[in-house]
């Protein structure tokens, strides 16, 4: 099992004929990710790496049964691309672009919620279910199937988490990167909800950062969650008033800073670690303890 995407997912790349789109196409095909088509208005009928390119998401859905999209278009065009994807019925959508106007992000998010689509981003690395499907900027070679689900805002930070798990010999069920902008489609909690329902996921790792209430909403859900959660929040030493690379990472009200989020998560029953480097070990311990419990 996995969440959000699996081997039956049918992926399109919006903006496939651009440089980033072509590179991603090559990579996803080399990884055997279930990529079926591209969408580039005005370029319908062309091919990229043997895959058909359509003028619209509507046509791609009609001709290929596509249901997920990696939106690889410039920031200024992301809104329309996402709205069209949602309208055409693509229900898992990743917006890679950084620098999307927040008004556009607001509209994408509202439309996705209204229409029941799952939107990662803007400014998101996307999601990957190792061995099944890749709808992300992450390199599938570094992951392997396993019992750990990861939900993070940041893509680069996620590499580090995966590395920590690899050291412990632990693979991933799915890895989900939500994006670093102040307004993004999905928050941590609904992803945790999917991990909770996924039999493969034995432990969930939540990686958060300062700013916004996503991690606090997640804490409220963790209180009712059976799957154990390891949580790490970045930005403890961020100087006040500065945007920390992610437009959304900004010191805010006390509960939105590291101590506030850590406290909420710990109180909800998550295993909170102070350092990035402690995540792998914490996951290993929980799995070990669970095994001892089930085989006394």
């Amino acid at each position, binding site marked *: 099992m996995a969440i959000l995407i699996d081997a039956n997912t049918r992926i399109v790349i919006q903006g496939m004929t651009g440089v980033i789109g072509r590179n991603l196409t090559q990579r996803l095909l080399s990884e055997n990710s279930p990529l079926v088509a591209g969408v580039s208005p005005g370029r319908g009928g062309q091919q990229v790496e043997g895959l058909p390119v359509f003028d619209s998401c509507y046509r791609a859905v009609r001709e290929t049964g596509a249901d997920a999209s990696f939106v690889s278009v410039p920031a200024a065009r992301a809104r329309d691309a996402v709205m069209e994807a949602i309208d055409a019925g693509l229900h898992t959508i990743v917006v890679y672009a950084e620098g999307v106007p927040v008004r556009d992000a607001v509209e994408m998010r509202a439309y996705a919620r209204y229409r029941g689509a799952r939107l990662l981003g803007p400014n998101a690395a996307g999601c990957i279910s190792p061995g099944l499907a890749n709808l992300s900027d992450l390199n599938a070679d570094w992951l392997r199937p396993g019992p750990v689900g990861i939900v993070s805002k940041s893509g680069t930070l996620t590499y*580090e988490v995966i590395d920590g798990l690899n050291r412990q010999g632990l693979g991933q069920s799915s890895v989900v990167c939500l994006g*670093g902008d*102040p*307004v993004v489609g999905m928050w941590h909690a609904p992803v945790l909800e999917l991990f909770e329902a996924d039999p493969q996921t034995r432990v969930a790792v939540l990686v958060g950062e*300062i700013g916004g209430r996503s991690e606090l909403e997640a804490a409220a859900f963790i209180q009712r969650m059976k799957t154990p959660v390891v949580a790490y929040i970045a930005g403890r030493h961020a100087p006040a008033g500065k945007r*920390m690379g992610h437009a959304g990472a900004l010191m805010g009200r006390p509960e939105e800073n590291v101590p506030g989020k850590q406290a909420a998560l710990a109180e909800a029953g998550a295993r909170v670690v102070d*350092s990035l480097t402690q995540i792998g070990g914490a996951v290993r311990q929980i799995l070990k303890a669970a095994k001892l419990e089930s085989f006394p």
Partner: protein
Amino acid sequence: MNLLECDGKTLLARHGLKIPNGALWPRLPDHAGQLVVKAQIPSGRRGALGGILFADTPEQARAQAENLGRQRLGEHHVAAVYVEERLAIARELYLAVALDRDAGCQTVVSSPDGGMSIEEVSSARILKMPIDPLTGPHAFQLAEVARFLADGATDPQAFVPVVETLLRVARAEDTELVEINPLALLPDGRVLAADAKVVLDDNAAFRRSFEPEATLKAVSAQSALERTIGQAGAVGVEVDADGEVIAVVSGAGLMMATLDLLKTAGLRVRCVVDLGGSVLAGGEGLRRVFEAVATASPKVTFLNAFMQTALCDEFARMLAGAQEASPLAGRVVVRLKGRCADTGREILKRQGFEVFEDLAPALDALTAQTNVREGR
């Protein structure tokens, strides 16, 4: 981008909101009566700092403006001086449209009690009206805000077009915040924006035509180092002017985590840099980032890069080139991991850098040989 009052008002006026008659000194407004002379600084404490003066004549206003323009108020240099007619105000109200990142929408914030900081107003006297992004504002929402502002004392109808226009400004100009405090109700029933605080979404600059008139540099919260790094296409965050370490990291999330690791290890960090995708993609930006770092002469530069899609050997070659063009004087500790990282590390070792694959030994190297702050 934060606009100064004068530019904020120009923006509001362009969309049809009434503002007092005013001009940016050395111009003076064409007004016969009393004048207000206002320092243009991004601070809500402007009045307390002596940044607002009253003049009976244009001559007096001119003298005050000239004097004010040379001053420093609190932490701010006075960027510009704005002179406008002095209003007879019957009531001071509060009206703003603020982006609520958590609700994911613009929210109209209003209060019949304006003229003070909104944080000082009791919550029962504040109405927050979220505007649905798909439907936009409804007529009944405008009516409710107007009723709340009128507070049973005046005709609400006068406020409806003001609220509507402010929402139009927020949408058309892509604002993160547009705040009018006070919104002035004059004895003759007119409603004017007596002040204006506007924060624009920089990401939407491509579809906005507005050009601020007043100088921006005073408004920018960036340090010189941050600005230089920003001009190279990366994001720099200055942490401690006396810090010894500058950390250059391959991504925003990892940058924050790296800062946490360094500070927790007791190191004094001058600045952290997020290289971002565009810099990682090409040599020129990277060279300029390293030039900027070199000019800051850090005792230690820590490069922390973990890349799964970009190629580490290419990155190392670009780095070697940058080092030759503008060498870093102090120690350079490198953590390089990812695709083709073996070759990359070899290249960087030849540059005399201290090179590691994993984070832990790199951190050990940093703390072992760098001054660790006392009482960590």
